[in-house]
């Protein structure tokens, strides 16, 4: 597809900019996600999709029409959508008798499915039902994962990585301390994942760091793990490969000792001690035909230094 873009030259500057924004880059921008409805959706699923879209605006696309797609059987339709809308994360919602209130979280690498996790919604509280103030659109949320399952179980580890990828916002170099308002808390217990979203209230405490109080906000889900499709290990490794320009170059010759002082090594050339530049003493300057004076001066210098 990229080769085709090069052969067909862009005719306007605007289209050229559009194509360049879709080319692979050294450091990538924020991943956008597409939120798709399946063949049959229940009220819960539709509302859940709308809530996640509200959380992920503006880097999300909500597909309004229903799409008869079965991601676990045939993912070519999803890959086509991702190519068209240049989205690498997707959320697919469907509902049928066998799998009620089904959400499939997934991500792509190079427009092919990397990981997919199917989660069933057992309990769902929508944004509309919780009538409190919400934080502004686009705030970077604090993410907290709780539960030892996220550490021990391989599937849960992958799910944790996927959820981080999905919900972490843009990559920023600095953040406003008062603006840390939104927190998403995931708890894993006995094959179920509880997702809660709270608004952070920073209260005065005696010292500089504030005391936290949480206020219920936003969608809360009780998920149950169903099927999944995890990428093979080498594909996963390939997806993580960073290009050369991104890794910061390690500065050589810097070491730290026990006290924390920074040390480095200086490599000197061999010095000719006869031609060393020392302090100039006018009295010692060589005058024409006065070699005895030199030796006398040398003798005179010696006692001086002894003093």
């Amino acid at each position: 597809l990229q080769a085709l873009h090069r052969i067909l030259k862009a005719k306007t500057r605007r289209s050229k900019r559009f194509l360049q924004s879709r080319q692979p880059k050294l450091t990538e921008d924020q991943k956008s996600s597409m939120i798709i409805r399946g063949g049959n959706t229940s009220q819960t699923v539709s509302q859940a999709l709308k809530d996640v879209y509200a959380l992920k605006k503006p880097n999300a696309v909500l597909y309004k029409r229903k799409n008869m797609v079965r991601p676990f059987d045939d993912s070519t339709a999803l890959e086509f959508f991702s190519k068209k809308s240049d989205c690498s994360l997707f959320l697919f919602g469907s509902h049928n008798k066998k799998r009620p209130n089904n959400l499939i979280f997934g991500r792509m690498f190079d427009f092919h499915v990397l990981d997919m996790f199917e989660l069933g919604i057992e309990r769902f509280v929508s944004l509309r039902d919780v009538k409190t103030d919400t934080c502004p659109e686009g705030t970077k949320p604090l993410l907290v994962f709780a539960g030892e399952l996220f550490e021990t179980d391989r599937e849960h580890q992958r799910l944790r990585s996927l959820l981080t990828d999905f919900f972490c916002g843009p990559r920023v170099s600095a953040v406003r301390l008062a603006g840390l308002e939104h927190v998403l808390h995931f708890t894993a217990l006995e094959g179920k994942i509880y997702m809660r979203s709270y608004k952070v209230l920073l209260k005065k405490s005696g010292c500089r760091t504030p005391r936290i109080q949480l206020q219920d906000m936003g969608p809360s889900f009780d998920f149950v793990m169903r099927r999944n499709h995890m990428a093979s290990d080498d594909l996963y490794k390939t997806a993580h490969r960073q290009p050369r320009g991104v890794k910061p170059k390690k500065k050589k010759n810097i070491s730290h000792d026990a006290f924390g002082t920074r040390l480095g090594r200086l490599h000197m050339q061999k010095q000719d001690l006869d031609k060393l530049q020392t302090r100039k003493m006018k009295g010692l300057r060589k005058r024409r035909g006065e070699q005895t004076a030199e030796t006398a001066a040398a003798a005179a210098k010696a006692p001086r230094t002894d003093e």
Partner: protein
Amino acid sequence: MWGRKPRCVIRTKMASCSFEDVLAKAERDEAEKLKGITVSKELDLEFDPGNLLAFDKNRIDTREFKDCKREDFLRSLARDNTQLLINEMWKLPTERVEEVIVAKLPDPTTLLPREKPAPKPKPPTKWEQFAKLKGIQKKKKTNLVWDEVHKEWRRRWGYKRAKDDTKEWLIEVPENADPNEDQFNKRNKAKKERVARNEYNRLKNIARAQKIKVPGMGLAPTPRQSKAELAQAVNVAKISTASVGKFQDNLPKEKTPKNTGRKRKFQPLIGDFSSEKQKQLDLLKVMDSKKPRLDVTKAVNKQMREEDMESRHKNKKDFGKKGRRGKMSGKGKGKAGGKGKGPKGKGRKPQMKQGKR
């Protein structure tokens, strides 16, 4: 006056309290201040401030996780974890940006997969190779050029450019040219040819970058073609059919060229044998290695073809079954019933249920 006395008394009383008491009181005050923000946990959390991420590995007590108290339990757990994360965030270096205090985030430590594979560096074009060889540097040109005719600054190329060739209403006929030749037409044609050649070179650069084979130089359109080039063009045209020229008849006196196909190159018989030795050793190494050398495209194509064949067979079978079932309606049933009964009654082929032999 007597009001002062109690003060003196108090002061002496204060002096009698020791320094240790004052220090202890100060410590207690500090502890109370920190009480608001300290959280005790069995295991420390793992933090990733770059991503605003915290991970709590502690065991969750299932007893506390009952239906009625679930929300409260989750909220208190979230509050504790968020407090620890906020404590971590407040430890980061801060700076003031336009009356707002901002904390500088370090690089994120959790590795997340990329969206697309890393961009590969493009191989240099023909001109870039030549420029590098000769040491030619790119010179930055000004956007606007002074146009003497219009006495103003005009752009170097594009709409309303400085020296516009196409807008000339008078072209001098050069001395050695044909007087009846249309000079304007000649200029237009030359421009079209330049555009076409530019496009051709651009595509050749792309093909070289992608390592795609394109037909050789002899087949490019040139005004005068030599005999050899014409012969080559004829041969290439002959094999450019769907069956690669198998059914193309020869002209009356034309001979089919026998030397087509890939030329095999052999190493010289005498001289340096190190390359041959190296090739043999490499061959042995490949045969000896545990990992097989896999040509990914071939393997994938093979797999896809197998899957296609399987699905085709499956569809054929299913279609056959469905067809028969679909057609068996009403009249079909009677006949099928009859047919079924017939062979069953009469001697059929003996079933495999032969028992032990």
